[in-house]
């Protein structure tokens, strides 16, 4: 068991290192932050001077070596645009903004899925079932940002500002972005819960329990739900990854001041330190969550032994 955990941990580290390395070289291929800092009427000499000041004129291998060593110290350098510590900026934007958004969406997409999925399964074939399946299909078929724009159109424009269209700060500002981000995962989870429940509801031990006269609800929730929980758990783990990358677009649509938007804004300006720090944090969260899901899966289902 311990060897397994250790291997998964090392694996997670390798993934993070891989992502960070790819980003490091990729962004340096794409542009020169020095040109951004100077006047468009700057001469080549001025740009070179700025590059020297930013340490960008050293050989790539040297920059990479320094970069790796600095990560060990937790130092991702200073943002080129704002001169503040890059990792600090990233964490500032991650918490609370993106964390709140992702957590709300995660909660919404898992908790709301349970009653909906259960109702759907227990009233199979009814209008509730068909309705929720249709809605799920719709939600999984639309681009999340379009849903966001349509919600803005409906709530912020047509209904006269019932909910704010942009920005952050209050619960009211959180509603539309969280709902938009949660929509597709919610749809998926409802279908999962439903199918998990359906599978179990027909099984022997449930029929036995019913025959014994146990309260219907007790039967449902104790036996069936537990069976549905496992796939939802896996999917939730992957959902978090989806939440994080979905947050990039949702934060842009709603001007939500989170990490996704920070990275999106850092890219045009080629703010290498911020891009690197941001992607690092994303990768750590992603790899970390996968690690936790692997561990939980092993704990919950001893039959599974992942390679």
């Amino acid at each position, binding site marked *: 068991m311990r060897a397994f955990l250790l291997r998964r941990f090392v*694996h997670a580290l*390798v*993934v*993070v290192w*891989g*992502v960070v390395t*790819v*980003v490091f070289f*990729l*962004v340096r*291929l*794409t*542009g020169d932050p020095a040109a951004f800092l100077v006047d468009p009427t700057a001469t080549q000499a001025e740009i070179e001077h700025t590059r020297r000041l930013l340490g960008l004129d050293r050989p790539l291998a040297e920059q990479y070596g320094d970069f790796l060593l600095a990560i060990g110290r937790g130092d991702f350098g200073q943002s080129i645009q704002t001169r503040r510590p890059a990792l600090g900026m990233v964490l500032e934007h991650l918490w609370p903004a993106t964390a709140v958004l992702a957590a709300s969406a995660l909660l919404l997409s898992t908790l709301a899925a349970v009653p909906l999925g259960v109702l759907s399964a227990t009233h199979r074939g009814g209008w509730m079932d068909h309705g929720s399946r249709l809605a799920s*299909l*719709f939600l*999984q*078929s*639309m*681009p999340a*940002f*379009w849903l966001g*724009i*349509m919600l*803005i*159109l409906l709530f912020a*424009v047509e209904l006269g500002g019932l909910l704010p269209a942009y920005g952050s700060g209050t619960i009211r500002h959180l509603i539309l972005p969280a709902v938009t981000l949660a929509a597709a995962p919610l749809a*998926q*989870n409802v*279908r*999962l819960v*439903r*199918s998990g429940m359906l599978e179990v509801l027909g099984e022997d031990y449930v029929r036995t329990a019913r025959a014994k006269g146990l309260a219907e609800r007790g039967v449902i929730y104790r036996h069936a739900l537990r069976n549905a929980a496992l*796939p939802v758990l896996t*999917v939730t783990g992957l959902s978090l*990854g989806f939440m994080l*990358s979905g947050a*990039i*677009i949702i934060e*842009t*649509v709603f001007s939500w001041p989170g990490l996704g938007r920070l*990275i*999106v804004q850092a*890219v045009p300006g080629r703010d290498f330190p911020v*891009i690197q720090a941001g*992607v690092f944090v*994303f*990768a750590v969260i*992603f*790899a970390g969550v*996968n690690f936790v899901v692997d561990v939980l899966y092993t704990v919950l289902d001893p039959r599974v032994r992942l390679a």
Partner: protein
Amino acid sequence: MRFRRDLPALIGLGIIALTLVAAAFAPALSPGDPVKNRLFERLTPPMWAQGGSAHHPLGTDTLGRDVLSRLVHGARVSLLVGLAAVLVAGVVGVGLGLVAGYRGGWADDLLMRVGDVQLAFPVLLLGVAVTAVLGASLTNMILVLGASGWVTYARIARGEALSLKERDFVAAARALGAPAGHVVRRHLLPNVLPPLMVVTTFSVARTIIAEASLSFLGLGLPPPTPSWGAMLDEGRNYITTGWWLALFPGLAILVLVLAINLCGDWLRDALDPRLEKGIG
């Protein structure tokens, strides 16, 4: 086959067929020019709204271009990119996955690591990098989307290869001295294809949405080529004054992707009803 009794799937297929036809005959179906600016006709509403005209059934955009025409031409982009990117991802992914699964050992480990790194990598960044270095074009868009999608195929192919390579018919082939390539092609590949078909269908749907997302962020095809994602992006700034600009491209994506998902659902049910439901 139970196809005829499954109404949703039939509808889905019908919609897909319609889209294909629309894309193929786009110029014939366009009331106006999707590309030419007519600044004096900008922002006309759809024909049923006040100020609209039958000339432009779905209105015009900020440069006076007919929305319906752009929608119909945009179908070409969405379909082309969706299919091509999935093809690239599929070929690369299945190829790598089969080889890694069959060979095992370090090749397998390497593939899994690379796949994990790929999954943890934000597609957006890849899109920007490719656009920056190679420029924004159809080919590059297909490359980016293909590069971000191959992992699923690789994993499935690898899984199949792992479980199949111990089976009798494979062992027999090897015992007869068949080279690895032959085994992969003749014995593993046909068995991998059925589960892949389902994944492919959903993949096309996901890729169409991904293309729209990249275009929405400005990483799509160069103007004035119409693409649904780019139209959505333009429309986003005119929510109050030009609501039709954001509504119709989104509806188009929704309808097409819905249709594909319906067919995918049916396909999955038909091929193996016990495959885990709901993963799309």
